[in-house]
């Protein structure tokens, strides 16, 4: 809405903010990536890595690409279908369904992988109950399935937003009342209008999938199925050879090239599809369920329970089970695992994760606000776009680049991990803050100035209160991301600086099922319960408004 950046009143602030942004960009992303390119070129010039190693790198990259595509397809299909069911049909228990669909947002990827292994793997819940386990869970199929589960909530949110605006109910009604059957209206009106959103969601899911490390580490590596991220991890953190190191550098470069090319291409495509229209019309009562509608909503319920609820249940049961191999019946329950998971080492890791996440979130929100304040002018636009691209740089690549650029000075410190978090999550926080700022009217600010307030006071008393929900939301979002982060932490940690996610991964690789499950439960359930409670309370108070 506001074409003019609100806080651009003094030239001095503008130069300062711009300088800060460019300096941060350079330090956080520019220098590390530059270092990565230089070292990579150097290694290639010396002929490293050799042919065999290049072949395995190529295979890992190929795996990354096709699993990314598969995940995007599955997640977008499932998310769009779920959106139709919750937005356009009278499905039973809609509010609970919505919350359950969004649950995976709060569950870290590797915990999802662990919970699926405990639910559908050999010796898991399904195996104990009916003697069947999911074939291919450890391997490509499992990796794609669980990554799709983690990506689906975002695709769902995008589809819901699109159904409310681009493909608003009245547009569908206009088609019906113009003589189109239900299916025709869907194909000629709803689907084309959803296309930009679908493409956007697919792009996001793809990028998230190629970035993913935790899920392929837990489900892919044991079966020898390697993606670029787990290959990089193997080469850097599990191999002592120089060839392995070269391969990691090369893969890191290939990965970031892939991500950037894809982001640019998808962005071009999206901007060609046209802007979003406004005005949706009353959502009104939804159509009562036809036979196919009922089947679809049942299917969504089943998928959500199988994908999210059952695995979490299996995880909790694993945490309670006395020993590996015993069925999780109450006779075999113990609190020993939960107690061991509270040991000093883990509490320390938990504290470090919380600290890093808090600090990162605060810095990101502050930086986001700074960048938002300058985005009106051309250089500001460039900075904003560059900040966004940092989100597209895969975590593995960023970690490798950080090691190369700052490894000497900051090796094994918390600061190194913090810098990596800020670099990676800057784009996320900035987007949320900028999105909120664009909706803020300029006039209240002008009214404050005209009433005698200096720019700083006006911003503090008028702008900031309006933006507080968005700022808080951005802080929370970045906190959750950083708290659960595994990809970069696993490559950057050192003595005494392991985060909780790293501790769990390490433990999982040693194979202590009970304690791993207990730790995963501690990591996941509390924020999950709090968020669910908040959602329920928030929605019930909002829905009391008259229809």
């Amino acid at each position, binding site marked *: 809405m506001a074409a003019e950046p609100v806080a651009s009143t003094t030239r001095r602030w503008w130069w300062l903010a711009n300088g800060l942004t460019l300096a941060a960009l350079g330090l956080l992303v520019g220098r590390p990536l530059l270092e990565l390119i230089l070292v990579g070129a150097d290694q290639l010039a010396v002929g490293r890595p050799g042919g065999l190693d290049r072949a395995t790198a190529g295979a890992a990259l190929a795996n990354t690409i096709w699993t990314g595509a598969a995940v995007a397809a599955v997640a977008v299909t499932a998310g769009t279908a779920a959106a139709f069911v919750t937005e356009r049909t009278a499905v039973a228990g809609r509010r609970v369904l919505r919350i359950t669909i969004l649950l995976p947002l709060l569950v870290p990827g590797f915990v999802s992988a662990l919970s699926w292994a405990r639910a559908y793997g050999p010796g898991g819940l399904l195996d104990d109950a009916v003697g069947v386990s999911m074939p291919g869970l450890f391997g490509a199929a499992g990796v794609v399935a669980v990554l799709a589960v983690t990506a689906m909530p975002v695709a769902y949110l995008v589809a819901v937003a699109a159904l409310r605006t681009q493909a*608003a109910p009245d547009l569908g009604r*206009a088609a019906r009342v*113009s*003589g189109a059957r239900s299916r025709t209206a869907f194909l000629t009106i709803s689907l084309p209008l959803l296309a930009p959103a679908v493409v956007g969601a697919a792009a996001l899911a793809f990028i998230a999938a190629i970035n993913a490390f935790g899920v392929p580490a837990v489900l892919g590596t044991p079966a020898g199925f390697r993606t670029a991220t787990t290959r990089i991890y193997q080469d850097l953190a599990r191999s002592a050879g120089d060839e392995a190191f070269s391969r990691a550098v090369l893969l890191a470069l290939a990965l970031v090239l892939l991500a950037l090319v894809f982001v640019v291409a998808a962005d071009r495509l999206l901007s060609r599809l046209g802007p979003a*229209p406004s005005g949706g019309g009353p959502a*009104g009562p939804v159509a009562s369920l036809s036979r196919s509608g009922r089947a679809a909503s049942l299917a969504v319920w089943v998928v959500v329970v199988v994908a999210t609820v059952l695995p979490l249940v299996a995880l909790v049961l694993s945490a309670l089970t006395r020993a590996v191999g015993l069925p999780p019946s109450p006779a075999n329950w113990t609190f020993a695992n939960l107690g061991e998971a509270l040991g000093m080492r883990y509490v320390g890791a938990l504290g470090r994760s919380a600290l890093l996440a808090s600090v990162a979130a605060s810095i990101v929100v502050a930086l986001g606000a700074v960048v938002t304040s300058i985005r009106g002018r051309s250089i500001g636009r460039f900075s904003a776009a560059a900040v966004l691209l940092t989100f597209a740089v895969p975590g593995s690549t960023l970690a490798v680049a950080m090691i190369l650029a700052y490894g000497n000075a900051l090796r094994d410190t918390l600061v190194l991990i913090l810098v990596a978090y800020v670099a990676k999550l800057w784009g996320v926080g900035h987007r949320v803050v900028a999105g909120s700022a664009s909706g803020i009217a300029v006039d209240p600010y002008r009214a404050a100035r005209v009433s005698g307030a200096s720019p700083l006071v006006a911003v503090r008393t008028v702008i900031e209160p309006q933006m507080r929900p968005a700022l808080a939301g951005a802080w929370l979002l970045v906190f959750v991301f950083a708290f659960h982060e595994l990809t970069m932490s696993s490559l950057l940690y050192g003595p005494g600086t392991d985060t909780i996610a790293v501790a769990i991964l390490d433990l999982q690789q040693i194979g202590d099922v009970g304690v791993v499950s207990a730790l995963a439960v501690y990591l996941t359930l509390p924020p999950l319960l709090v968020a669910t409670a908040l959602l329920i309370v928030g929605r019930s108070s909002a829905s009391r408004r008259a229809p």
Partner: protein
Amino acid sequence: MTDSPALVCRSVTVDYGPHRALDRLTIEVAAGETLAVLGPSGSGKTTLIHAIAGFVPLSDGEIVLNGRPVARRGMAVAPDLRSIGLVFQNYALWPHLDAVDTVAYPIRRRGVPKAQARSDAEELLRRLGMDALVRRRPAEMSGGEQQRVGLARALARQADLYLFDEPTAHLDAAGRVAVQEEIAAARLGSGAAALYSSHDAGEALALADRVALLRAGRLVQVGTPDEVYARPVDVWAARLTGPASLVGAHLEHAPGRVVTVAGTPIEARLEGEHDLEGPIQLLVRPDWVSLGGPLAGVVGDVRYRGPHTDYRVDTAGGALFVRAAGTPTAAVGDAPGVQIERAWMLRADTSEAPPWTTG
């Protein structure tokens, strides 16, 4: 061709959970007739239209279109199979289609091949004077232009009944005028029936053959525009259908019928319900009263509007709004008195002072 009514609603009831949006609504629209449904926000106008169109199931009652039952509790004919056209409040144009494709859409659904449908659509747009809009997409059109395309789309359906869901609600003054003219012209041309919902009394009275007043899902009154304007069934209806002044008065039947306002007898054309007696209210429209007369009153406010001037005159019985052509002939503080020439008698009601309503 037949003289069965275009629309019959029998005891139509729609519930959203515990909330009853339409309550045993019974109404008919004759072939070729335009019925205006007038009511405030939330009265159920949109629900009624959605029920007739088939977007909302009935909890009870029956809807019959052109002699054919299309909706009952537990049964509903799909919207695309009902012979209706609908013009939406929010235009509901499809962002990815230009005007020609939008208007051609219903034509194509009849099975007409694409090329033929597009040329038919172009022809229709041309006939309606919308050549300039032919290749434009909604994002390139103003609100008024979008709504006119929406109207063309509905007309392309060649339906027996047209539904208008507050079509001018979101338009500015110019757009409103353009669309209203378009609708009036289309009405004359096609001879189809129409149901037009609005919260604007002036609009409803202008367009309709009959007007139905809707309040919280119930019909309050149905009649010709003149009937609902001059003979509203209660105070609420009176305020809904036009600018209204309500004056406390007293009616005595012996020796002859005498109506007094604060002691002053009123010599006027008085109509009302038959069994009124004692304290009553007089509905006086601004054009039924003139400045200068036996009823004492002081001018409290004067607003010159251009073609006419509105006055508020405070009398012992209440405030009277007077509309007189031309420039002001009295100023604030004058005490010219007023002459009530016509009034409609209503039961005494506990009502607050009417707001300053102007057209």
